[in-house]
């Protein structure tokens, strides 16, 4: 009888403990069963009035029940204290993040990196040269005759100097000569860099801009090779199929010389303002290296063949990001730069 009562208490209290939701509730359960006037306490207190054999029988069971309840309460208490109050935790995840500054690279840098990466993947080395050049490297060595209009004050920045005549390089081509003077073919280089032209600035013209020059020289490099390399480059750069066409042109440092047009990606050759309704955009000048250039660099004439090309990084950047004013590049305006 008494035995049943103990196990009933144990069962009931266990149930209550497990479903209790707060420490306060748990405390009430503890008082209810184990308090001074608690149900189990009453039984334990009554043990001494029982006959010895009954006492020996019930005593251990009741004690065991008390310990079990105590243990369960302690356990539940720990559980309850570790429980998280999700209501208190709640935040508005749609509030803005904390402001964190990250810098932005100049768009010219981004495009220059693209160009360098594509050409280095084709085995081209990156070469550099000075921005202040001698007249010889900038003009004479490149077969630009002394009375060529490019040597006019209107087109070129000349520097005051006591010794040889110095200019701000008008193209990256002097690096061709500098590189060939120090290296023998096979040559594959790409030369991105800052160049200068003494001309008035407007939305499409800058006196300071960036060119990428390429040079490939070996025993039998041909115009057909050139077309192939250009196609690989421009298709990688624009990440789509492009059409290229070569038109005749004239540069003192190449013979034959080409103008390279690419199909207008804005209008798909239909004609738009970007391509002046022609469907084509002029993107680079090029040609087969003039033998006089090899001679100037110290090679034997008619020993090697090669192609050279030069394009405007600014122009490619403007095409890539649809920038409509070249002057933004040197504006230092973060409202512009932070967009890249």
């Amino acid at each position, binding site marked *: 009888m008494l035995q049943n009562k103990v196990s009933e208490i144990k069962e009931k209290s266990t149930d209550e403990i497990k479903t209790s939701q707060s420490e306060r509730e748990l405390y009430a359960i503890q008082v209810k069963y184990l308090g001074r006037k608690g149900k189990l306490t009453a039984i334990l207190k009554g043990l001494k009035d029982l006959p010895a054999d009954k006492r020996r029988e019930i005593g251990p069971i009741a004690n065991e029940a008390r310990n079990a309840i105590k243990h369960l309460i302690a356990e539940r208490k720990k559980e309850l204290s570790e429980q998280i109050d999700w209501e208190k935790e709640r935040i508005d995840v749609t509030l803005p993040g904390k402001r964190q500054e990250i810098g932005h690279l100049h768009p010219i840098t981004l495009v220059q990196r693209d160009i360098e990466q594509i050409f280095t993947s084709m085995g081209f080395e990156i070469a550099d040269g000075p921005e202040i050049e001698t007249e010889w490297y900038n003009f004479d060595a490149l077969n630009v005759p002394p009375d060529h209009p490019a040597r006019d004050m209107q087109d070129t920045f000349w520097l005051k100097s006591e010794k040889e005549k110095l200019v701000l390089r008008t193209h990256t081509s002097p690096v061709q000569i500098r590189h060939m003077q120090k290296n023998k073919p096979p040559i594959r280089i790409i030369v991105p860099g800052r160049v200068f032209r003494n001309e008035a600035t407007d939305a499409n013209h800058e006196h300071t801009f960036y060119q990428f020059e390429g040079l490939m020289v070996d025993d039998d490099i041909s115009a057909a090779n050139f077309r192939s390399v250009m196609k*690989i480059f421009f298709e990688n750069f624009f990440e789509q199929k492009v059409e290229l066409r070569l038109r005749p042109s004239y540069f003192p440092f190449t013979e034959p010389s080409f103008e390279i047009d690419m199909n207008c990606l804005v209008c798909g050759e239909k004609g738009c303002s970007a391509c002046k309704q022609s469907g084509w955009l002029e993107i680079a000048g090029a040609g087969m290296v003039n033998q006089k250039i090899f001679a100037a660099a110290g090679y034997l004439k008619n020993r090697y063949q090669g192609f050279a090309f030069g394009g405007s990084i600014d122009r490619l950047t403007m095409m890539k990001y649809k920038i409509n004013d070249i002057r933004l590049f*040197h504006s*230092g305006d973060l409202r512009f730069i932070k967009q890249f």
Partner: protein
Amino acid sequence: MKYSYAWLKDLSGTKKTPAQIANMINMRAFELEETKKIGNDTQLNFNILPNRAHDTLSHVGLAREICAIDGKLLKSEKIINLSNFNDRQSLKHDGLQVAIRENYLCPRYIGAVIENIKVSASPKWLQQRLIVCGIKPINNIVDITNYIMLETGQPLHAFDIKKTTGNVIVRKARRDERIKLLDEKVYELNENNLLIADSEKPLALAGVMGGLDSSVSKKTKTIILESANFNATNIRKTRTALGIQTESSYRFEREIDPNLAEIGAARAIELLKKYGGKNVKVTALNDVYPKKIKPWAIKLDSNYVKSLLGEKIPVAKMKNILENLGINVKVAKNILNCEIPIRRIDLKTQEDLIEEIGRIYGYENIKEQAPTVKVKTPLQNAKRDFENKLRDVLTGLGFSEVMNYSFYGTEDIAKCNLKIEDHVEVANPMNPEQQYMRTTLIPGLIKNVKLNLKYFDKFSIFEIGHVYSKKEEKTILAGVLVNTKEKNQFFKLKGELRALFNKLNIPNTKYEILDTRYEFWNPVRTAEIKIGNISIGKIGELNPAIVKYRTAAFEIDVEKLLKMSAREKLYHPISKFPTVRRDISMFIPINITYAKIESEIKKSGGELVKGIELFDTFKNSLALRLKIGSDAKTLTSAEIDAAMKKIIAALEKKLKVKVRK
């Protein structure tokens, strides 16, 4: 040059439309500028390449191109009817005396005396053609000379013989000689200018413009017609020096064929007889051409053509293309022996001929072919890689990249306390703000700061670019940090540089107080950055007199930095033994810097000092947290206390620091 479609069609016999001609010339010869409908005709404007001005600044020249592209020979060479000219034998030379004093500057001079001229309007069709080509009709004589120039490329001139002494002298001008030209302006000449003169006076500025006093007027009855050839360089120098540009000088300065002189004269006589008045008659003709230019030969190797273009063009095709351009070709095995007509001054080498073959064949017909090369990995450009790394770390630290011009002006130099004599000067700057080559990137960055403060109150920017001195050109990295709400930006920037150097594996950098050449720097808030004994740049605040808000800046020599960071990274084993933290705070005398305290702690604490961290400063007191430990064992607290005691004693004794206990 502006061409008349109708005229080109007449000469070439082409059946192509203006649009087809435009496209064909654009792809095979010269860039199309624009096409414009004028009356019944179409104006085609092509940008004639500088090396082809010799032979194509004329309708005959372009018609020859059209025929060659169409695979034909220009038939209308018939307009070049020299019969009027060939009867010159019957005319007395001494009817017109021509004396060339400067053979080099005037290789050929043809003068003809033409009588019974009646000045009037020229025929409508001729006027129409001039208008389409952008030239205003004036009278029959002037119009005919212009017409012949547009047709053949030979500039002509006519003098009224009555206004001359009846003879021609080609000579250099004398210093201070003057002439009033057709533009009614008086020009002062010198020995560099070539004149057409008579026995008494200058008549024309050779090849550039006629003189007003000897010009044809309504009353003119007899003219001297000039069809000559002048040295290109001299014409160019004269016309640039005097600031004149004419259709005539435009052609002469590009060098033209002396044969054109006789073609031009012959055509002019033909047209003058038709439209210059009744009974027009040539009474004298003198052709002075002392040094005849002969055609020259080029041996062209057909294998070289194939190799350079990368396309197997049949030899017969090559021959055909060259012949249609007026070149005589004899094939012997793989060699094409070419005789070049002297109008093709541009054709001197095999490559020049290969270009002719390539462009007429059509560059689009050359198939792309990937080059065959030996496999090799390209050499790394260490400097470019390093610059890119700098850029990546700096953007990670919140810096945005700008690019500024390589120039600045006297105002920037003065404002930034720089010295003009340190600068390379541009001889022909666009404007005074761009007269000097930059020796530092900071003035450009200051401009950027001023602009961006309009829109942002907090930002960091950097630039990697060249600076120039009379000795050398260097690559510099510079940056600025602006925050209008902060009073001290120096330490923020210094911390960022530390992160940068750490990432680049640059060992201990030192900051030494700057004591010379403050320029734009704040004299008491600037330090020189050193690695070992080498100064690599500066960090500091900008002089508040130059920039309103506290602006911290740095400028570093990229190549020096690159040399310092070239070392490989090596792993240091992580210590197995614990370190303990000990704080000390102290009052420091005014002349003692943090650097001295730090170095004293390291010196006195030796290997046991594993870290020093500043965690508080207030007026003249500092609080430091030291990490004490050993790589060899776990230190006992007695050992730690002893180390601290030693450090404190050294600080107090050597630096007169008062450590709080």
